[in-house]
C-alpha cells in the first residue's frame, strides 16, 4: 500500500514539475490533469471516495476543460512565452525551495497529532459528507451561491464583447510613463 502512495506521490510531483516547466501551455494542462488524477488516487487511498469523484469531475472535467477552452480561444497553444529573466527564475526556484525547506524543517520531528475521533471507515461516503454539509455547513453551502452568482456576473461583465470600440488611450500617462516614452 505504501508503494501505491509513493507511486501516486511520484506521479503528482513529477507532473506538477512538468506543469511549471513545460514550454507549451497545452503540455502544462495535460500534466496538470495527470497531477489531479494522481491526487484523486490519493483521495481514494485516504478513503475519500466521494471527494475523489467530485474532484475528478470538477477539476479534470470542468476546470481543466475551461483552461483548454481559453487556451484555444485566445490561441495560446504555442510555446511563444519568452522566459523570465534568469534572476527571477532563480529567485522563484529558491523561493519555492526555501518555502518547502522551512515548512518541512518545521515538522522535522514528525507530526505527532492525536487522532481526534475513533477510526470510522464511513466518513468518506456521500452519506456522511452530505450529512455534515447540509446540517453543520448549511450556511456556507447556501452562501456559496452568492459567490457563484458574483463570479457569473463578473465573467459576463468582463469577458463580454464590447459594444463599442475600446479606447484604452483615453487615460493620461503618468509622469514616469511619459518620461519613459520620451527617453
Amino acid at each position: 500500500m505504501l508503494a501505491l502512495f509513493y507511486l501516486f506521490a511520484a506521479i503528482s510531483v513529477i507532473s506538477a514539475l512538468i506543469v511549471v516547466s513545460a514550454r507549451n501551455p497545452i503540455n502544462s494542462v495535460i500534466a496538470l490533469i495527470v497531477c489531479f488524477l494522481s491526487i484523486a488516487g490519493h483521495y481514494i487511498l485516504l478513503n475519500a471516495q466521494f471527494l475523489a469523484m467530485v474532484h475528478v469531475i470538477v477539476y479534470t472535467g470542468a476546470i481543466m476543460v475551461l483552461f483548454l477552452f481559453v487556451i484555444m480561444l485566445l490561441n495560446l497553444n504555442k510555446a511563444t512565452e519568452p522566459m523570465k529573466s534568469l534572476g527571477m527564475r532563480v529567485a522563484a526556484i529558491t523561493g519555492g525551495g526555501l518555502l518547502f525547506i522551512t515548512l518541512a524543517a518545521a515538522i522535522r520531528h514528525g507530526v505527532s497529532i492525536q487522532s481526534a475521533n475513533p477510526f470510522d471507515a464511513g466518513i468518506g461516503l456521500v452519506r456522511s459528507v452530505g450529512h455534515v454539509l447540509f446540517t453543520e455547513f448549511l450556511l456556507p453551502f447556501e452562501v456559496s451561491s452568492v459567490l457563484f452568482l458574483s463570479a457569473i456576473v463578473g465573467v459576463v461583465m468582463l469577458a463580454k464583447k464590447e459594444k463599442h470600440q475600446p479606447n484604452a488611450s483615453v487615460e493620461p500617462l503618468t509622469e514616469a510613463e511619459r518620461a519613459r516614452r520620451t527617453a
Partner: protein
Amino acid sequence: MTNDLLAALVPALPLLGAIILASLRRKLSANVAGGLATAMIAGAFVCSILLFQSFDAATGGRTVKLLDWISIGSMEIPLALRIDALSLTMMLIVTGIGSLIHLYSIGYMHEDERAPTFFAQLNLFSFAMLMLVMGSNFLITFIGWEGVGLCSYLLIGFWYKTPEYNYAARKAFVMNRIGDVGMVLAMVLLFQRFGTLEYATIMNVASGVNDPLMIAATLFLFIGATGKSAQLPLFTWLPDAMAGPTPVSALIHAATMVTAGIFLTVRSSVLFELAPFTQDIILWIGTATALIAASIGLLQNDIKKVLAYSTVSQLGYMFVALGLGSYSAAMFHVTTHAFFKALLFLGAGSVIHALGGEQDIRKMGGLKGHIKITFFTFFIGTIAIAGLPLMSGFFSKDLIMAFAFQRSPVLFALLLIGALMTTFYMFRLLFLVFYGKYRGNAHPHESPLTMTIPLMVLAVLSVVGGLLNLPHLFGGHEAMKHFLETAAEGIRFESLELSHATEWILMGITTTLVCVMIYIAYGRFAQKATLEGREADMPFFKRLIAQRWRFDELYRALFEKPYGWLSTNLFSIAEQKVMVPIMNGVGEAANSLGNAVRRVQTGNASFHLLAMLGGLIVFLIITLMSN
C-alpha cells in the same frame, strides 16, 4: 515729610522737564526749551541745597521709599532714595554743575533746530544721574547707571547724520554694557549673599564678613566701574564720545557720568575694604590708566580729545585714591575735577563756538585777545588741573599723591610723572590755542553771556574748591572727609599719617617740577608754535603715542572685526549651511528613503508575489530560529 518730598523732587524735576520737552519739542523754541530745562535742573539744585541744609550729618542718612518696585518672594527691592553725605555731595555736584551747563547750553545750542530735543535729553540725563547717586540700593543705582548710558548714547549721537558719531555713540553704549555685565554679576552675587541690595543693610552686615566672595563681588563692581569711568581696558569710548555737543562732554563725559564708577566704589567702600586684592587691582589699573591717557594727551591735536584724555587720566588718579582706600580723597578729586574739567570743556566749547566749529588746535592760536573771558577762565582751569598751589586741583591731587607716597614712593613717582605730563599737555593746549598767532581763517568772537557766566562761576569754583577739604596743613580740618565719613558707618576712611614735613617736601617737589614743565611748554608752544609734523614722520614710540597706543586698532582687530566675521559666518555657514540643511536633511533623508523603499513596488506582479513569498519565508525562518 517735606524732606521726603524734596528728595523725590530732585530727580522728579528733571524727569518732568524731560517729558515736557520731549512731548512739546516741536512747539518750543530753543531758548524757551533751554530756559525750561535750566529751570528744572536749577530747581533740583535748590532742592538739593535745602536738603543739604536740613541734613544732619550725625544721623548718618536716611532712606526715602517711594514705592515697591520688584517685590517677589523674599526679594524686596523698593524704589527708594537714600539721602546721606555721599549722595548729597554728588547731588550738589550734579545739579549744581548741571545747572551751569544747562545755562551754557542755551547759548551754545541756540542755533540748532533740535535744541529742545537736546535739552530734553540733557534733563533726562540729569534725572538718570540723580537716580544713580540717590538710589538706596544697587538696583536703583543701576537704573541711573543704565539711564546715563542711554542718554550718553543719545547725546553723543545727537548729530545723527554723521555715521562716525553714531559709531562713537554705539561704541560708548556697548563698552558701558560690557562693564554692566560686571555690575549685574556683582548685584546678583551680593543679593545671593545678603538677601538684599540695600546699601544700608549690606554695609551694616558686610562689615563683619570675611568672605572670598567679596573679592569676586568687588571685582565685578570694579568691572562695572571701568566701563562707566573709562578705565583700562574700557576707556577708548570716552575720547570718541567727544562727538557729542561740547556741553555734553562737559556734563557727562567730564563732570558727572564718568565719575559714577568712583561713586559706586565709594558707595560700596565697605565691601572694597574687605577685599584688599581688589583694591590693589584698582590701584594699578588706575595708575596705568592715568599714565597711558596722559601720555596720549601729549600729542593730540583736537581740543576736545586732549581734554578727554585728560579726563581719563584724572579718573585714573581717582581710582588710585580708591585703591589706596582714601575714599574721601577720591571724592574730593571728583568734586574739584568736576569744577575745573567742566570749566575747561565749556571753555573749549566757547572757543569752538567762537571759531564756528573748528576743533583742531593747529588752526587756532592767539585767541586770548579775541575772547578774553574765555581765555581767562580757561587759564584758571588749566592752572587748576595742573595743580598750581592753592588752586583746587592742587589740594585734591596732592592729597592723592601724598596717600600714594604713604603706600610707596614708586607709586608716587609714577603719579608725579602723570601729573607732569598733565601739566605739559594742558599748557601746550593753552599756549597753542590762546598764544602766538592765529593760524585759522574764521572770525573769532566772544560767546554770549549765557555761556560766559557759567565759565566765570566755574572758574571761581575751580579756584576756591580746595576749601571744601582744606587739609590740616593749611589750617583746614578736612571738612569733606568728615562729612563723607558719616555716609559709611563701620569703616573709617584712611587718614594721612605723613608728617607735615614730608608733606611739605612732596608738595615742594611737585610744584617745582610742574613749574619747570610749564616753562618747557611755554618755550615750545607759546612763542612760536612748534607743531608736530605728520604722524608718519615721527619716531616709532612717538608715533605710537600719537596714534593713541593703537588701542582702537587693537580692539578693532581683536573684537570688532572677528565679531562681524562671526556674525556673518554664523548666519551664512552655521545657520544656512548646517542648521537649516540638517533640518531639511531629515526631511530629504525621509524622502529619499521613501524613494528607495518605493523601488520595491516595481509594478511587476511576479516580483510582488515573490516578495510576499520572501517575506513569509523570512518570518518562517525567524520563527524556526527562535524555536
